[in-house]
């Protein structure tokens, strides 16, 4: 039986990698993947705790997260493709249409 703390440690590590990837990398695809990592880190946590507390709601929430992540991936990738077609780049520093 793997103790709960290990799962949580794994979750923290994965989340930290995600955060680092999102903030440090400049490629939009990589940043996008980092977001997915963060989401999945949360999923690990949710399922582990659900099992530990014997409460199904955590797993239901995890399913929701997966569904949202899928939707997000679909829309996000579509945006990235549209962006790439327009700008011919996936480099995030060159995309500053939203500058105030």
């Amino acid at each position: 039986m793997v103790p709960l703390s290990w799962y949580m440690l794994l979750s923290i590590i994965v989340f930290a990698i995600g955060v680092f990837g999102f903030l440090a990398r400049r490629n939009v695809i990589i940043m996008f993947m980092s977001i997915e990592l963060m989401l999945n880190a949360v999923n690990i946590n949710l399922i582990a705790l659900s099992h530990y507390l014997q409460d199904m709601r955590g797993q239901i929430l995890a399913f929701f997260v997966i569904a949202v992540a899928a939707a997000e991936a679909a829309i996000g990738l579509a945006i990235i493709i549209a962006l790439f077609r327009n700008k011919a780049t996936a480099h995030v520093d060159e995309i500053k249409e939203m500058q105030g």
Partner: protein
Amino acid sequence: MELQFYHILIPFLPLAGFIINILLGKEVTRFNAHWPAVLSVAGSWVCSLFTLRDVMAGKIIDADLYTWIVSGTFKVSVGFLIDPLTAVMLIVVTTCATLIHIYAVGYMRGDSGYYRFFAYLNLFTFCMLMLIMGNNFLLMYFGWEGVGLCSYFLIGYYFNKKSAADAGKKAFIVNRFGDFGFGIGVFIVFLTFGTLHYADVFSNVSSIAGKTVSFLGWNVDLPTLIALLLFCGAVGKSAQLPLHVWLPDAMEGPTPVSALIHAATMVTAGVFMVARCSPIFNLSEVAMNTVAIVGAATSLFAATIAVTQNDIKRIIAYSTCSHLGLMFLACGVGAYAAGIFHLYTHAFFKALLFLAAGSVIHAVHTNNIQEMGGLKKYMPITYAVFIIAALSAAGVPGFSGFFSKDEIIWSAYAAHTPVGKLVWLMGTAVAFLTPFYTFRLIFLTFHGENRGVHKAEEAHGHNPHGSSHSAHGGGHNSHGHDSSHGSHGGRHIHESPKIMTIPLMILAVGAVAAGWVGIPPILGGGAHFAEFLKPVVGHPEFHGTHAEEWAVMGLSTTIALCGIALAAFMYLRKSDLPEKISKQFSLIYKVLYHKYYIDELYNYTIVKPTYWIADKVLVAITDAKIIEGIVNGVPGAIGRFSQKLRKVQTGLAQHYGIFMAAGAFFIIALALLLR
């Protein structure tokens, strides 16, 4: 007695005439507009005679038609009060109005605004009749403002002329200053008595004697306060000092208007009002003295100005001011009947003076008496009636004006108070000036050589009226007789048509004989007039002997004859003397000629500063800088702040990410620390 049908007809017939002409005048009645107008006013006159008969039979009518305004305890009706005072005024107003309407048929013939003129004249008659017949203060106020409005319309009748439009506006606004006081007076009457109906107010009037109220922080005697506030209205309407400035300018209107509104009827409304409110005025010595002194001062003041003026109508206008002053003088010493008596005789001789002057203007097409002269032989009828009117105005024994003026001066003397003596002196001075300026006018107009022929020829080209006439051909019709028709030269001077001279002759009879109803006992008369009015206005106590009365009468008569003689000497014998005198006393002459610079004073102390404040302070500073500064400033400040704040929005996704992470860290840290 119940209100009879013909009582109601008196005011509403002219109203009907007005409605017919104003609605149909342009298309239907057009140059027949005088028919409804004259017939309706003549109808009122007939009804007034019936009414006079009723009142002579001792009947007094006080009846309401309907309730006008109700609000809480405030209730006021439209209703009529017909008593001797009203009856006298009815006769004065309808008689003058009828004659002047007829005269105007000839005077205004061919004017493009013919129907409009008669419509306004009818409306005026309606308002004036409402003013005198109303049985409460608010209805008087209705008539009061109504006649002011008609006066505005009729002064500005030749509205294409700036001076006419200005004069009309000035008359209205100056009157509003007086009405300001009058209105507040009405408020206080209501708050004191709980009603505005004369009968209820005057029957309770003794309850306020000696009462003190707080008004705007000052403690004042209640009757004095009410009387003085009401008198403010009279000062405006009757052109007394210091609100007299509008009356001379009002002469821009057609002459029949000057005769009807600015001599015979409207301007006397103030005197009527004071007489009507005599129960209130009687309670306050201060108010009475104020009325007497204002009246006497205006009388003297206007008479001195009249001496130097050259415009025929303005001279008569100042003369009107002066005579109105005498009426107030009479009221101020308690001799209301004498004041009303003078109002009554004055209506005849002053209307006559104006209409005769109109006849002159009609013939020579100028208002300047220096350009007239020698008209006697061209216009015999006008000359004759002018002389009659002047003798009456001058107070020559036997004529109407003599009896009324004498009664005023005697009342002032006999009042035996310091104020009475003072105003008596002033009145006597006026008795000298009035004949002087009136006969100066006659001698310059009718006697001597005609100085106008040459100038009238010139008028074809470059007299100011003539040029304005030719400059805008389109509007020339509406200029009428007072200013256009420069084409008539002196050689074409002729007597006016019958439709104008017949009313003149009828009025001349009035100017001679109207006063015979009030011949004082000392001359063998019965003073019927004063007796008739006694139930309404009472009668002052005279403290004087017959000898004194003879002396006072003799003095004023002698002085009047001296005035005529001096005028004859200066303007017939030594016609270079006036010029010498004016050079000798050029300062005084200038001040008088410029009417004591009162207009200029008002212009620089009231009109200009108000306008300056409006333009330079309220528009430019308060509204534009202060209020708009805040209104536009707050959004502006928000805008500038957001200009700064938008810099945070870099557009780089990773900056947002860092902020998010930092924020999340911060919140979690806070949550943990504050646990």
